[in-house]
């Protein structure tokens, strides 16, 4: 693995360029839509952006309902945030940008157009170009960014059953007008896995910038362009999370490959990812780019972004994931791999740093987090921010092990309880009677019992040191892992010695 310490974001060495392509490969480009969830209000009106879980059409006003005569006014903070993202993606921020109307007739947009930005017909989006470097196994890869622009989120459509058979559509405009950042990549991704890695890295960057909470449902969504080498491009819409992206892309690639195998051609079309049926379905949409009849939004004036403004944003930029990984390696002496895993999720990295402030053994903390904590989260399909476990509790548990109150093995049983219940480890130990048994008196009786239950194993152990482990294991089992491992070992050996005499 390449050491990221020596690879800042503009370093091009060791990065695979996109020119070398084999035949029959997959090419994927993503159009990522990110909600700027840290904004308090929508992009063009003062309605609250905190719409998740709210009653339908409770956060709407004449502007986001598209009532004639209502005028949009840009949210000033959205430009700061968008410029931050552009800088983090090495994009060139435009000196002056415009908003354009994208015209289409679909009930998710009450105005019959979406206020967006455009890079043709004289349109200038917020930023163009740029790249993001991702790690795919041991390979570093540069994914080019086409453009970054601001637009408004459409409303939420509720269908009865599947989108293509629902008798009608219900519309909730609470989401209509939420500030979205669209990030478009070049078709540089070669597999669904790479797409997921790209999105994960992007999410970590956005979270570190403090503009976005990835744990909120629907806060990062994407459309994907997928083609086989030399084949037609298909657009897949409605990929609602980065967990879904691998699934949706794999399905679409398989569908295209099967068509080719049968000698059929892949149609140039837009398809919809149906999350519940796990298939892509044709939307039979005949709109072409020019059907959107983009034109400048007359109700919004141009926005100039001066060099001073950009410099000012640069100064406010928080630490980004790559820098943080390097710092974790340098300041805490963590292996590169640990640092990368922890920083891949901002919440995880924050938890780590809080814990290390309380308990200055970074590798020990990292081991517990990377091993038992992450495994537990994954097994229960949880994210750290939804759990009640705190850095204080983790530290308390590690100290209980250090002080010999519980064994490391018991720690592995305490931790899942901490994750699920948020209880203090000392309380869990008391409630479940998990305190380590480290008195001879308590263990000697159990040793007798193990020896009498396994006479043939005792024979073996007398002759072969390797067979002793079995007896120790039985003793641990009989005490449900609570026996002090060292003392258990010692007592078994003593007992064997006494038999030899």
């Amino acid at each position, binding site marked *: 693995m390449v050491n990221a310490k020596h690879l800042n974001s503009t370093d091009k060495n060791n990065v695979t360029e996109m020119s070398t392509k084999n035949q029959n490969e997959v090419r994927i480009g993503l159009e990522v839509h990110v909600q700027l969830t840290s*904004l*308090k*209000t929508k992009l063009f*009106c*003062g*309605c*609250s952006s905190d719409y998740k879980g709210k*009653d*339908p*059409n*409770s*956060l*709407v*006003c*004449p502007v986001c*309902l598209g009532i004639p005569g209502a005028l949009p*006014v*840009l*949210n*000033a*903070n*959205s*430009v700061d945030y968008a410029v931050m993202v552009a800088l983090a993606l090495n994009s060139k921020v435009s000196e*002056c940008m*415009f908003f354009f109307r994208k015209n*289409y*007739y*679909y*009930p998710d947009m009450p105005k019959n157009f979406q206020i967006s930005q455009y890079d043709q017909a*004289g349109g200038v989006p917020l930023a163009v170009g740029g790249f993001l470097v991702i790690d795919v196994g041991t390979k570093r890869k540069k994914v080019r960014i086409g453009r970054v622009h601001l637009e408004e989120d459409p409303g939420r459509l*509720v*269908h009865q059953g599947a*989108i*293509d058979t*629902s*008798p*009608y*559509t*219900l*519309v*909730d*405009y609470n989401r209509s007008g939420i500030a979205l950042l669209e990030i478009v990549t070049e078709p540089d991704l070669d597999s669904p896995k790479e797409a997921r890695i790209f999105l994960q890295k992007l999410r970590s960057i956005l979270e570190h910038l403090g503009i976005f909470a990835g744990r909120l449902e629907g806060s990062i969504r994407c459309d994907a362009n997928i083609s086989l080498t030399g084949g037609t491009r298909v657009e897949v819409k409605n990929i609602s999370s980065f967990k879904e992206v691998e699934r949706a892309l794999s399905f679409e690639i398989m569908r295209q490959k099967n068509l080719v195998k049968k000698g059929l051609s892949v149609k140039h079309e837009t398809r*919809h990812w149906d999350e519940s049926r796990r298939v892509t379905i044709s*939307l*039979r*949409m*005949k*709109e072409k780019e020019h*059907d959107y009849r983009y034109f*400048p939004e*007359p109700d*919004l*004036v*141009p*926005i*100039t972004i001066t060099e001073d403004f950009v410099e000012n944003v640069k100064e406010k930029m928080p630490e980004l994931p790559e820098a943080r990984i390097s710092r974790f390696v340098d300041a805490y002496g963590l292996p590169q791999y640990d640092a990368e895993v922890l920083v891949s999720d901002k919440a995880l990295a924050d938890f780590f740093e809080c814990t290390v402030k309380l308990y200055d053994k970074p590798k020990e903390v990292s081991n517990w987090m990377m091993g038992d904590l992450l495994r537990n989260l994954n097994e229960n399909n949880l994210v750290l921010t939804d759990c009640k476990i705190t850095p204080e509790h983790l530290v308390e548990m590690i100290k209980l092990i250090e002080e010999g109150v519980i064994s490391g093995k018991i720690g592995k049983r305490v931790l899942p309880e901490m994750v699920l219940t948020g209880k203090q480890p000392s309380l869990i130990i008391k409630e479940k009677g998990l305190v380590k048994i480290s008195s001879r008196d308590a263990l000697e009786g159990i040793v007798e019992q193990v020896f009498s239950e396994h006479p043939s194993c005792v024979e073996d152990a007398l002759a072969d040191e390797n067979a002793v482990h079995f007896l120790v294991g039985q003793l641990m089992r009989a005490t449900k892992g609570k026996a002090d491992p060292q003392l258990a070992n010692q007592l078994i050996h003593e007992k064997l010695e006494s038999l030899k005499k």
Partner: protein
Amino acid sequence: MKKQHLSKKEVEHVAWLAHIELSDEEKTLFTEQFNEILEYFKKIDETNTQNVEPTYNVLDLTNVSRKDETKPSLPTKEALRNAPKKEKKFFKAPRIV
């Protein structure tokens, strides 16, 4: 009739984009009317714009924005008042795809 700027087929396409169904008479009528309008707008072509920068906004303003502060939204009942069809607190619309 003067020069065709827009064909009947294009009118059909525009109607399809807008999800509007037109009768054959309407298509013929609108094609004529569109062409008359476009013919009239041709006058703009007579202007020499060779050294004129494109105007994206007629106002001589830039950077109009507001602070990120919430304002009260409409009560749901008020928001739905003009909706021809509604269900519970939702607007109701035909399926498009």
